[in-house]
């Protein structure tokens, strides 16, 4: 069994010098604790510092300040080959001049294991990633999915304390992505290797992770379980970035054990789950997911105009114009033919228990 590592980032900052000589903070005071065997994903838009964070963990970049602690030892300045980690790259990075067997054996040979031990380990690894019989092939003779399996096997064969992934699936087609991600998840659980995974694809992050770290402009915005991130985003950025959200300004009337009472455009809603920082008497925002919205021709709710209605089979997706806001509604209850049409007046409301209140 692998010796799964505990990885701690303490106030890790990385500054780069731009070609013009300015300093940019690619990663800004990031702090994290990653438990043994945990699968943690760094998620965020392009350029937010995910890769830089991962490369500092791997040792390809050294932090400008801060500590990186693996099992009690500060490794921030340890060279990458001494870190007992292994990385899986977006480009696979298989050694083109070596066979599949030698690719997987590479790390073991560096560790000077006996030929017999290497043979057993390589064969068992290849069967684990479903590549029996392909030992003698060259990487160029494999499909993209197979190549990434070799890369995965090559990384796992050395039984690293931490396994690192930088967008490993983004070069594959959609179907392969889905099947390979569940395989990564299965193998990671089976081996119990602490894993840090970088992606900008939130579905991938949701499907794979024990915990997701949402990053923006070098900072960690939120680190929590997938459902907490979705249901209780820490701020507007996370709410917007994870799934789709309607973010609307409200006035907080009161906060109690049962949640917050808010006023939205003159209407009062009670019992909304809320962020601990929300105080009574101030303004705030509510996050309402499109599927928590209700829309109809008449009845209760606020008036809006239908900007577009898109029939998607299992639901109808509406864009509503409400003042200066554009609201997104996913309506799963509609009967075919009974949908609202573009330009029609409609009334909308939402389920308070499925909304979330954020400080302003």
């Amino acid at each position, binding site marked *: 069994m692998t010796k799964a590592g505990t990885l701690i980032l303490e106030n890790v900052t990385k500054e780069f010098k731009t070609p013009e000589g300015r300093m940019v903070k690619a990663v800004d005071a990031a702090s994290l604790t990653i438990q043994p065997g945990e699968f943690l994903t760094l998620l965020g838009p392009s350029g937010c510092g995910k890769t830089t964070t991962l490369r500092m963990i791997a040792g390809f970049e050294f932090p400008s300040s801060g500590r990186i602690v693996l099992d009690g030892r500060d490794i921030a*300045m340890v060279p*990458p080959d001494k870190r007992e980690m292994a990385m899986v790259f977006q*480009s696979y990075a298989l050694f*083109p001049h070596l066979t599949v067997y030698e690719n997987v054996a590479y790390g073991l040979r560096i560790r000077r294991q006996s030929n017999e031990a290497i043979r057993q380990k390589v064969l068992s690894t290849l069967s684990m990633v479903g590549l029996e019989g392909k030992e003698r092939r*060259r990487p160029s003779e494999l499909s993209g999915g197979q190549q990434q399996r070799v890369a995965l096997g090559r990384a796992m064969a*050395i039984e690293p304390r931490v396994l*690192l992934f930088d967008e490993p699936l983004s070069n594959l087609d959609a179907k392969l992505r889905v099947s390979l991600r569940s395989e990564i998840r299965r193998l990671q659980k089976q081996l119990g290797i602490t894993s840090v995974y970088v992606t900008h694809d939130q579905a991938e992050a949701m499907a794979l992770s024990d915990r997701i770290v949402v990053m923006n402009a070098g900072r960690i915005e939120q680190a929590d379980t997938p459902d907490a991130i979705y249901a209780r985003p820490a701020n507007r950025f996370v709410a917007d970035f994870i799934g789709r959200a309607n973010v609307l300004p409200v006035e907080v009337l009161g906060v109690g054990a049962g949640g917050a009472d808010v006023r939205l455009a003159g209407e009062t809603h009670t019992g909304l789950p809320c962020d601990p920082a929300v105080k009574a008497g101030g303004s705030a925002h509510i996050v309402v997911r499109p599927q928590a919205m209700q829309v109809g021709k008449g009845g209760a709710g606020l008036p809006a105009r239908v900007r577009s209605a898109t029939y998607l089979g299992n639901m109808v997706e509406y864009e509503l114009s409400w003042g200066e806001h554009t609201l997104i509604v996913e309506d799963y209850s509609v009967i075919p033919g009974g949908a609202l049409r573009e330009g029609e007046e409609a009334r909308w409301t939402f389920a308070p228990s499925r909304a979330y209140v954020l400080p302003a």
Partner: protein
Amino acid sequence: MLKRRAIDPTLAFGLIFAILFVAIAIVYPLVRVLGTAFEPAAGPYFERFLLRPTFQTIIGRTVVLGLTVGLAGTLLGFLWAFVQARVAAPAWLKRVLHLIALVPSVSPPFAVAISMIVLFGRRGMISYGLFGIEGNVYGLPGMTVVMALSFFPVVYLTMVGLMRALDPAMEEASANLGGSKVRTFLRVTMPMLLPGLASSFLLLFVEAIADLGNPLTIGGDYVVLSARLFIAISGEYDLLAAAVLAVILIVPALGVYLVQKYFADRASVVSVTGKPAGSVALVTDWRVRWPLLALNVFIAAFIALVYVTMIAGAFTRLLGIDNSFTLNNFSYVLSGLGSEAMLDTTRLSAYSTVIAGFLGMLIAFLVVRMKFFGKGLLDFGTMLGIAVPGTIFGIGYLLAFNDPTRVAGFTLIPKLTGGQALLAGELAIIMVFIVRSTPAGLRAGVAALQQIDPSLEEASVSLGANRAVTFGRITLPLIRPAFLSGLVYAFARSMTTISAVIFLTTPETKIMTQQIYAETDAGRFGNAFAYIVILIGIVLLVIALLQTFIGLATGAERRVKSEN
């Protein structure tokens, strides 16, 4: 505070070695040349060389030689490339023409000059033997022909590469728009080839003004700077004059080299923009095709004649005068007095090849993959080895290493050149061989490394291999073709060079090219030809061995850059 990032010890060693090498073997001798030339005592020399009409003539002649060789060699290379890439001709003919163009690159540059003397000189086999004319090959026309024939292959290889990389679609587009073929060629194709042609011209200019072997053998009264410089040292023993001349030579040589690099970089931009799709329409119009083919075949036949003459001359007593068959020339070189030079040269070239081969790849690796202060300087310093004429290194080495370098009574560098030098002067010769041949390997290595996804090396490092092991196990195998070409170039260059090394030979350490020059000078053409034939034989043999052992492309290289 954090500790400074720890660099891999082996890599640090490599970096230090590279820096020390560039500093001691390249920069220091050049600094000594400059230092000597700008001593107060050198003032009158500058006055003499720059203001007196005799010396102004020398400078003028040097420039004229550069221009004529640049023009003739570029035209020749262009002709060769155009026929290869654009003219319809039988495949075997193209193959033969291609091989003939490569011969000059494995022979000493002034071998052609010696053949020309035997063929067209005063008692030349063709000029006198066939036509009864006392030919005169000495001087500017002879030098131009000889140098153009010797140096054009590099132009040919560059231009053929460029022509093949051009996207035929552009020409097709022009043809579609109604442009005639000639018009299309002049308006569309030529402008794209222009940077390549300009860079070729300038490169030949530098080669011509830097060359020493040809001016010595066939220059006659047409004295150019490099030859004058040689006289200053070997005839007048005046290092001060030599240093001043060196500075006068270095200015145009280095200046033009830098301009050339600018054009070469632009030419390479052209070559990588379009992924060529489809194939070009070859010229089939006989009015264009026949004259070009005829001219090309004629010149190729001429080159062949020149080299056949060398072989014939090696087996004759004195070609053109006494044509009786003999093996004496060969026994002189192989087992007689001349064998020492052959063995020494081969041995020293072999050492240099190994070191230059690895050094070129190492510096390429450091320059492309590592971040460190002075990276650009390391690259530039290494390139000085070829940008600066060899004669100047010759003088620089004499100035720098003829006496031991002592600091506070402690010998830092022992005496490396002249009598009683360390290892009989072998170390200095090896150094200069490496200096002259590393730049080619460096450029090939840089080009190859830029094609390789850095994550391959990172993958290796993350699997526990340190940078040095990664370099050996991953990087070097992947840039093997560049490594091989660096080795081949280093060996061919070391075996055939004369300009720097002629100043550094000692009574105990003789060099083949210098012996060839001496034998020619003494009129013993048979020995000179035997040397040349054996030298070419050794170079070809070693190239074959290198290709067998280092191996050709494995097929892996094509996939090195993992697709994104």
